[in-house]
């Protein structure tokens, strides 16, 4: 069990190295995408800087808190797509039958397929998330360690959502635009203080649009250094990942029986 864990770590490293090397074939494009994403995220942070210079608090949350939301979300999203870039585009892979290549390997399809690509701009998100947290929040050692752990948890949420959204393609055909919209909604809601939302919307934000597990619980854990919130966030992440893996394998069985809507023999 431990050996398989180590083996998988080795594989993750090997894939990530291969991905980085592939990106470095076009260093200019890679760097410009990273920088553009940093600037993009930075623009939003600047907005909040302006906002809080005028309004001090929002539902009791100040600038460092909102920056924390941004940092966790950006870093989690960045890690997810820098390492498992195919979580962003599972749908086209399935539709175009590229699963077959992964199915010909003696390994579990899902993790290997996910590891097969790295999105350059995601590195920008990851760098930004960490830099913003360190610069604006100035955490102590305990919080920094917790931040690192929680960003990996958030990454798992994004990977899980990507798998779920992509797996829809097993059932309803090309769902990539739906997947993109869903992802954008999650990212959006994750970057606003949860206190803004009440009632039914709040429930939504812990289920269909799980911003709650992406950033709300992690940031609450960081604010009050609470182990309870931290474990809640991580458990939620693992739960989402487990559900998504199950849905994927359900869809994979369908794929393997050849009864996709768009099949050409």
């Amino acid at each position, binding site marked *: 069990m431990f050996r398989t864990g180590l083996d998988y770590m080795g594989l993750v490293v090997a894939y990530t190295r291969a991905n980085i090397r592939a990106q470095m074939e076009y260093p200019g494009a890679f760097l*410009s995408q990273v920088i553009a994403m940093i600037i993009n995220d930075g623009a939003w942070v*600047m907005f909040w800087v302006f906002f809080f210079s005028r309004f001090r608090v929002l539902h009791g949350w100040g600038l460092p808190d909102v920056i924390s939301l941004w940092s966790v979300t950006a870093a989690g999203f960045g890690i997810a797509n820098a390492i498992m870039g195919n979580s962003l585009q599972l749908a086209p892979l399935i539709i175009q039958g590229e699963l077959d290549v992964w199915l010909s390997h003696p390994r579990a399809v899902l993790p290997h397929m996910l590891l097969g690509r790295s999105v350059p701009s995601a590195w920008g998100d990851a760098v930004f998330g960490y830099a913003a947290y360190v610069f604006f929040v100035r955490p102590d050692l305990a919080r920094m360690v917790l931040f690192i752990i929680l960003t990996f948890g958030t990454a798992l949420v994004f990977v899980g959502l990507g798998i779920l959204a992509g797996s829809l393609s097993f059932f309803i055909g090309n769902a990539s635009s739906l997947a993109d919209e869903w992802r954008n909604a999650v990212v959006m809601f994750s970057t606003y203080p949860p206190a803004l939302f009440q009632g039914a919307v709040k429930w939504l934000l812990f289920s269909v649009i799980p911003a709650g597990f992406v950033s709300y619980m992690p940031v609450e854990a960081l604010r009050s250094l609470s182990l309870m919130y931290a474990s809640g966030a991580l458990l939620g992440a693992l739960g989402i990942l487990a559900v998504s893996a199950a849905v994927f394998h359900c869809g994979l069985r369908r794929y393997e029986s050849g009864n996709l809507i768009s099949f050409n023999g």
Partner: protein
Amino acid sequence: MKEITKYGWIAYITARSHIAYAGEVFTRIVLMTVILYVFSRVWLAVYGVNSGPRLAGLTITQMIWYLVATEAFALSGPRTWYEVEQDVRTGRVAVQLIHPLSYGLTHLGKAMGERIVRFAIYMLAGVVIALAIAGPLRWTASGLAMFLAILPLAFLLDFLGHFLVGLCAFWLESVNGLALIYTRATMLLGGLILPMEMYPAALQPTLRRLPFASMVYAPGRMFVDPSGAVFFKAFWTQAAALIVFLCIVGAVQAAAFKRVFSNGG
């Protein structure tokens, strides 16, 4: 005179074909709804702890309607930068270089056609959403006239900005990042969410003189709280910016074309 009708025709055709892009429009309307919803919650919180119904002279209803106008502007941006980049990439630009002036005007016609239709659609959607969230605002004929009058130059300036970004494809491998930076800068420095009055006092004089505020803030302001003084100030800024932009575009275009001819197209 014939030339102008030709470009007018291009604008009309583009406008008509653009109505077919229903999917993208729908997506953006959903995005607009989410943004309006989220920020209605934000302003509720802010105004909730404010003494009195006005902040920087605006009521909460006006703040939400302000966002309608600025979002409609933001969402209706043209794809000119991408089209110019494609022209450069595919070498099509060499053919169109025979009449450099017509090259810019062709893109202008296309962009304006797109812009006007999309802006109208998003304004309409925004009106419906804002009516549901915040209730109606009291508009005056003169106010609406000022709103409509401030738009043409705003659109033109934004087109020139996008066109300039596209021209950079002569030097850069990909202008994707640059386009993102340009749009972010426009929104951040132009007052997409916060009207100029709410920016840090130290920054306001500079920001008001930049063209971005005259593109984003000015229409928004005319829509919710029209003021002759602000109108004229914005209008002169637009005019001045227009001259500057035209000079820059002219110079860059000349340099770009020289590059094409020296590289053999």
